[in-house]
């Protein structure tokens, strides 16, 4: 049974269809990368998963349980299991690093503060942020903020991690800091769905690549097949362009 199963998913902003029957599954402990041109609906897919954009059709099944996005309790359960890291970090500007990381586990999940803070300290140390506990987001570099965002998601102890182009807003020197952190998570067996443009990284870390275009999955399979030997014209064109850079 897949850990995350997306079946014939549809979603739209107003009357404009953005996802048109997406099918995709992620096994437990697997890392799946979502690639595709800008506007193809990758972010929208992740937003639908955490209930920020309502689906208009299809099913999302987590660990055998279908999520009902119109039911508050079902949605709450889904958000308990999946954590998202946004492209633009979206750290809470009014909280320091420690509070950003601990607020949800303490206030929302009701865990013991001391225990959560001990956890957070470990996670932040792993992210190379041990000396930044009391900095505010606007005092951190982009790469540091991105790692705080990752730490915040990890502190929630999610089963499934959703990452949206976590490196695209970073300077090249900072990209590796973040990718290293993700590599480590993959090695630990975290189930992940990643949107990324870093093809070398995608090849290295993921067991499956899914290419999307215009709200649909064009091709899916092992990275070597999809990236190096795409079958469809659309995929050939896309990877041709990307790999030339």
């Amino acid at each position: 049974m897949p850990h995350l199963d997306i079946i014939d998913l549809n979603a739209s902003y107003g009357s404009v269809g953005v996802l048109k029957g997406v099918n995709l599954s992620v096994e437990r402990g697997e890392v799946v990368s979502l690639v595709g041109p800008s506007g193809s609906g990758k972010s929208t897919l992740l937003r639908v998963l955490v209930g920020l954009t309502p689906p208009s059709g299809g099913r999302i099944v987590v660990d055998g349980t279908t999520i009902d996005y119109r039911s508050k309790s079902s949605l709450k359960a889904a958000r308990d299991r999946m954590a998202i890291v946004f492209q633009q970090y979206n750290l809470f500007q009014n909280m320091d690093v420690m509070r950003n990381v601990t607020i949800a586990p303490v206030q929302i999940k009701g865990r013991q503060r001391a225990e959560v803070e001990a956890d957070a300290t470990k996670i932040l140390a792993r992210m190379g942020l041990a000396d930044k506990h009391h900095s505010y987001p606007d005092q951190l570099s982009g790469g540091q903020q991105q790692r705080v965002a990752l730490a915040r998601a990890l502190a929630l102890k999610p089963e499934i991690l959703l990452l949206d182009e976590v490196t695209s807003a970073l300077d090249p020197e900072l990209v590796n800091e973040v990718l290293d952190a993700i590599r480590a998570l993959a090695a630990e067996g975290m189930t992940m769905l990643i949107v990324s443009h870093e093809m070398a990284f995608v090849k290295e870390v993921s067991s499956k690549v899914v290419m999307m275009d215009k709200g649909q999955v064009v091709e899916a399979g092992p990275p070597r097949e999809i990236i190096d030997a795409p079958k469809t014209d659309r995929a050939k064109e896309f990877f041709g362009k990307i790999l030339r850079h």
Partner: protein
Amino acid sequence: MERIIAQLPRFFSPENIYFLLQGMAMTLTLTIVGCVLGFLLAFIIVYVRQTPGWWAVPMRLVAIAYVEIFRRIPFLVVTYLVLFFIAAFVKQASVFVIALVAICIYSTAYTADIIRGGFESVARQQIEAATAMNFSRWQTLTKVIMPQSWPVILPPAIVFMVSFIKDTSLVSQVGVFELTFRGKELNNAGFSGVLVFGTIALLYFVMSYPLTRFGAWLEQRLAASRHHRPQRQLR
């Protein structure tokens, strides 16, 4: 002119000064209590107005109508409406309570828009991040939106309250012993209109001007701190 000079010593007698100070205290009390209560009620109005879902549509409409209607009725008319409404249905209430209710109704309508503007100034992504982590609407409001929006809300709210010091002069019409009413009494007692209302104007100025400056200063300071938050790091 000679009349004014002749009246000066009698006008600035200790009793009259005390009398005027009492009026000022009443003016400030009405303004502060009325506007602070109005501010709290305005939070509720905005919270209701932003409730999502079709079942909340009637509530949202009431909240919108409240703000739109009471911003379009003169404060004097609101005061009279409260007076006659209470006379018709509650029978008795002190003029102080009537004035306070009128100020509350009015300041609620005005500050609601200030608060709404502040809430809407918080980036949508901040709210989405909270939502994705299972924050309830109330938790998102108190832990994310309010802490980020008070620098936007507070200065105009203070400016509104300060400007309302002047508008409270109208409640003298229903007989509240505030500063303007005291002025009219002194004028009726035979003191020169120039002397009395010149003094009253000056006393309003003394209350209003420093607070206006304070509001402007606060606005600048908070505008600066929104872009920088250096207080913590600089030890």
